[in-house]
């Protein structure tokens, strides 16, 4: 039995890029997730940050089997999800749930709140319809919604309330692991705070293991025990949330933190902004994928890939500079 609830070993998800309709041919590969290894112990909140296109959502979907992995292993409760038969996977699914970004798109507009939250119970358990109503009511109260709203449809709720419904649905089967993909980025600041509080409270009280994916470092730092920073399909830095945020070691993490607009108007805009856009994951740069934008890149960065190595006891960094400061 592994010490981790979820463990990824050299996970890769590549998408072929095809052109032509009649004579289809493959012209390249998007390496959305390109060799990610990490372990999430039970009860931990692991935050994954990165810019759009860095592969963080693909990583989440690969873990759940929503997109097939190209190679590598996904161990959940010590079992490799990629080798399980479909009925074995189905039996495992209740313990592995997801909350999506856009609560306007992730709820079926033709299903009432009751139907939405009760559906996992109907599929995976033998709870009778009458008992289901009680369980749905409990779940709704758990996430801060009144029981009497059970018969309403998603359009009658605000964005924050919809995200509460989506969270209740994910909790319905008492999962061990929840993957939340940008759970608050579609919400306004004041509503965002409510949902973040709810997630923090649930993970604390129910001992949930949470993989939290976001582009917003402040959100991730607030909730996570550890943070992983992704760039072009690879994890470039992984460590304790406070350490990564206050003492970033990888030049990309440093740039990412510097780029957050400060709410202290007295402070001048910091120097050292990154130039250019993140490169295309279809044709990533050789060596370290960050070297074309890196302020401290040396010639060998363009040729030598940088593996994720221990820089400190609790921190891994994929940059040779981080080891020789």
């Amino acid at each position: 039995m592994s010490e981790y609830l979820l463990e990824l070993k050299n996970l890769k998800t590549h998408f072929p890029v095809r052109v032509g309709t009649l004579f289809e041919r493959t012209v390249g590969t998007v390496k959305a997730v390109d060799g990610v290894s990490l372990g999430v112990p039970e009860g931990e909140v692991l935050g994954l940050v990165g810019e759009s296109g860095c592969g963080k959502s693909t990583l989440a979907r690969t873990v759940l089997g929503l997109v097939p992995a190209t190679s590598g292993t996904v161990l959940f409760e010590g079992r490799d999800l990629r080798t399980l038969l479909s009925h074995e996977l189905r039996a495992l699914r209740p313990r592995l749930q997801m909350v999506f970004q856009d609560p306007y798109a992730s709820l079926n507009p033709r299903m009432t709140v009751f139907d939405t939250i009760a559906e996992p119970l109907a599929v995976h358990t033998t709870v009778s319809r009458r008992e289901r109503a009680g369980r749905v009511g409990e779940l709704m109260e758990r996430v801060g919604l009144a029981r009497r709203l059970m018969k309403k449809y998603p359009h009658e709720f605000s964005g924050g309330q919809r995200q509460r419904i989506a969270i209740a649905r994910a909790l319905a089967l008492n999962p061990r692991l929840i993957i939340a993909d940008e759970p608050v980025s579609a919400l306004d600041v004041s509503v965002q705070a409510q949902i973040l509080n709810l997630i923090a409270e649930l993970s604390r009280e129910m001992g949930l293991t949470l993989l939290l994916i976001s582009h917003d470092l402040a959100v991730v730092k607030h909730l996570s025990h550890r943070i992983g920073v992704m760039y072009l399909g690879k994890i470039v830095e992984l460590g304790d949330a406070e350490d990564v945020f206050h003492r970033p070691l990888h030049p990309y993490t440093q740039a990412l933190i510097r780029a957050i607009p400060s709410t202290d108007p007295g402070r001048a805009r910091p120097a050292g902004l990154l130039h250019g856009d993140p490169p295309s994951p279809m044709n990533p740069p050789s060596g370290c994928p960050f070297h074309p934008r890196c302020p401290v890149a040396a010639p060998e960065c363009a040729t030598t890939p940088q593996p994720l190595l221990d820089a400190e006891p609790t921190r891994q960094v994929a940059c040779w500079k981080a080891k020789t400061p």
Partner: protein
Amino acid sequence: MPLLDVENLRTYFHTRNGIVRAVDGVSFSVEKGETLGIVGESGSGKSVCVYSLLGLIPSPPGRIESGAAHFDGSDLLRCTPEELRAVRGKRISMIFQDPMTALNPYMTIGDQVTEPLRVHEGCPKMEARTRAIEMLQSVGIVDGAERLRDYPHQFSGGMRQRVMIAMALIGGPELLIADEPTTALDVTVQAQILDLINNLQQSLGMAVILITHDLGVIASTCDRVLVMYAGRFLESATVHDLFQTPRHPYTEALMASRPSAHAKGETLYTIPGLPPDLSTEIAGCPFAERCRHAVDGCRECELTLEDVAPGHQSACLRVQAGEL
């Protein structure tokens, strides 16, 4: 004399479910060369407010009920469509949130960037081309000459936003309106675009109205800020004063609910309740229902922005009375 002076603007939407008072009596002015930020949550009316000025409100259902917007001696709200067209894209231009939907996918970048020149100045093709290349260079697209023939889909998100900025600035506007210009962009690219807007503003001496929901963006770019809620302005201050000494409970609550304002793991401050339904008439302060300082008088008063410190206005009754 201010560059733009808006008085008592009201924009209502007449829908089947009643009248939605999206902008309900706002007044503000923009000085030459300054950056004015308008901050508010979604649905607060910040976009409708500036769309009204440029005649971009779909009508029906939208209707400008009252107000005046003085820009260089003429009232934008009473201009004929022809007069407005002469201003729009030339003297006042606009950049939008999502550069993919704001650019025309069927037109090359060259055609789109030179369009304002051809429409407003009847500029000859070769000259327009030269000026477009220069403009693209100043927004950071160095190989402009080769990229004029490209289409928007061949550019990344940040580059598209640069193209849109080039398009907005090529006519040399006196006022640039930027509606959430960086919301669709990644944080490292956002920093570049905000820097670019700031630099161009200083070199061209234009005024900017920046609309955003992000307090961090406001703090790093604006001179003066208006806080909008439920179609009205609740506070107006210099950016320094707003962040150092906010004088409206809504502004304070908004700042307190950001994760970065809290120690790690601490429960975040939340504003109870929801923003009010704009299709019903709101008596008094629209924030009163959610405000922890509200008293009975808040639901009856006439909402006006009044000076509470030099250059600092608040619409809060209790702040005005010196109670908070």
